[in-house]
């Protein structure tokens, strides 16, 4: 790595805030529930909506549920939904986009029309519609609903990248050497298109955390486990009696989304030397 490159990847400014936040979130999602002092649904009716105390560091919510435990378990829910959604959307979207851009013609036309149609409606409306039709939505349903709208962003990025790359000299060279279409696509074109896709995925993780919270806030979340959005739903209902609930849960969502956005910005600048 040259000095110049090292400077480009240095964690300073926005990245010095964003990257630690993302790491903190991922660690909490991984181990958070193990450190939860109570079960996220343990009911304690004698201590409902109480302020912070030694037994409940962040106080209690409706039915005496421990807020800290909900936050720690909710991190797992957010992380699980976000990572799965982004993985599925990334793979499906980049493949469809790459095929669309590389083959052109009718395939491209049909796939572009589908992406346009999905983008014509606000994605939250589509997600809400898909989940509201299911009697008891679970994790799988939530991930499927979010992926149903999520893949489009990756398809657009990967299509644009493939269109940009497909007539470059190194691709023509590979074709002249007799490489098959799939070999050209997977070995030559896609590896060069990975940067913008990773940037998109970073923003996508933040977006999926927010989407999970929004859907849970609307009461469409997975019934099992705990969610920051569901806690925020209680928080707005008890805004006068226990403003702490809304502040803490909304704060967790906001800080996580901010972390992913800052990291995405940093990655975009670092991966694109033109911006320097």
């Amino acid at each position, binding site marked *: 790595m040259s000095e110049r490159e090292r400077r480009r990847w240095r964690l300073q400014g*926005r990245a010095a805030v964003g990257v630690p936040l993302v790491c903190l979130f991922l660690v909490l999602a991984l181990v958070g529930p193990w450190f939860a002092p109570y079960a996220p649904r343990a009911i304690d009716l004698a201590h409902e909506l109480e302020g912070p105390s030694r037994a409940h560091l962040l106080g209690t919510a409706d039915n005496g549920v421990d807020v800290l435990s909900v936050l720690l378990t909710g991190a797992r829910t957010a992380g699980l939904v976000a990572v799965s959604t982004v993985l599925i959307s990334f793979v499906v979207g980049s493949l469809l986009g790459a095929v669309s851009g590389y083959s052109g013609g009718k395939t491209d036309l049909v796939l572009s029309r589908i992406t346009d*149609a999905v983008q*014509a*409606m*606000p994605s*939250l*409306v589509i997600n*809400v*519609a898909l989940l*509201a*039709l299911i*009697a008891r939505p679970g994790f799988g349903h939530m991930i499927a609903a979010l992926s149903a709208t999520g893949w489009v962003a990756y398809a657009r990025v990967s299509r644009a990248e493939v269109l940009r790359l497909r007539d470059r000299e190194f691709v023509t060279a590979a074709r002249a050497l007799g490489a098959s279409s799939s070999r050209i696509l997977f070995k030559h074109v896609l590896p060069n298109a990975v940067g913008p896709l990773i940037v998109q995925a970073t923003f996508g993780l*933040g977006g999926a955390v*927010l989407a999970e*919270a*929004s859907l849970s*806030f*609307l009461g469409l979340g997975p019934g099992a486990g705990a969610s920051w*959005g569901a806690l*925020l739903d209680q*928080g*707005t209902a008890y*805004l*006068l009696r226990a*403003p702490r609930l*809304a*502040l803490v849960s*909304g*704060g967790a*969502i*906001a800080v996580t*989304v*901010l972390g992913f*956005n*800052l990291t995405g*910005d940093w990655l975009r600048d670092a991966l694109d030397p033109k911006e320097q």
Partner: protein
Amino acid sequence: MRYLGYLLRRTLGGALTVLAVVSACFLVLEALPGDPTDTILGETATAEDRAQLRRALRLDQPFATRFAQFILDLIVPARGMGHSLRQPARSAASMIADVWPNTITLAVSSALVAWAIAIPLALLAASRPRTKTDAAVGVASLVGVAIPSLWLGPLLILAFCVAVPALPFPGPDAKGPLSLVLPSLTLGVGMAGILTRMGRASLRETLREPFVTAARARGLSEPAVLVKHALRAAMVPLLTTGGAQLASLLGGAIITEKIFDRPGLGTLLLQSLTARDIPVVLACVVVIAATAVLVQLMVDVAYVLVDPRIRLS
């Protein structure tokens, strides 16, 4: 007159898009597993009630008839886009008409808030690149983008209705322009963050163009160069994003409607979905899709108005 043909073609195309979207929804709802009378009435309903509901839903008729009736419901004004199943006396159109003014005032006022914040900030940052002002605007817009309306809404209520009780506490009783302030801010701030970032980038690019140098060479003052020449040309990407934002707001700001306990199109759609009130769901989808198409058309016309280099075709 030159644009009449263009507008006609676009309107027709838009109508076809809306038709395609609702037909797809109709098919999806049709393909859902389970007997709709079970989900609507519950499993304990009497056979008589079921038969009546099946007639109301036209489930006793073949698919083609049902689809034709559905399309007629939508286009014949007297049919009011079909009848609600939850409130059989009411037409879907009248239920939408109830919430539509709320949705449109909130969407328009939020967009106004967003543009009123974004344009001055973008001009400020782009005219002073690489200064502290530029950096401060950058940080502010990032925070604006990252703060979800989910959180900003409750924060604003706590600040301006509880800590400093300057504005009415949200609820069904809160009416009048003052009750619109906080919901518009909640939605506007996030949109402003995105518009500011785009506006700054677009302006920076435009300021390097020869016509800006030419305007400066003619001795125009810097504010005139910025606003009359650079801003106009930099508007195109902003209009695209602003249009998408407006369409999405008109599609129903479900979250903000819930936080501020305001009726609106999003809430109506969610309630109708949960109650399996299919005629109202489909009517909402038609309105949302038609609005999106209409806003897109307005944006395309606006391109020509702000940037004389663009032609409609």
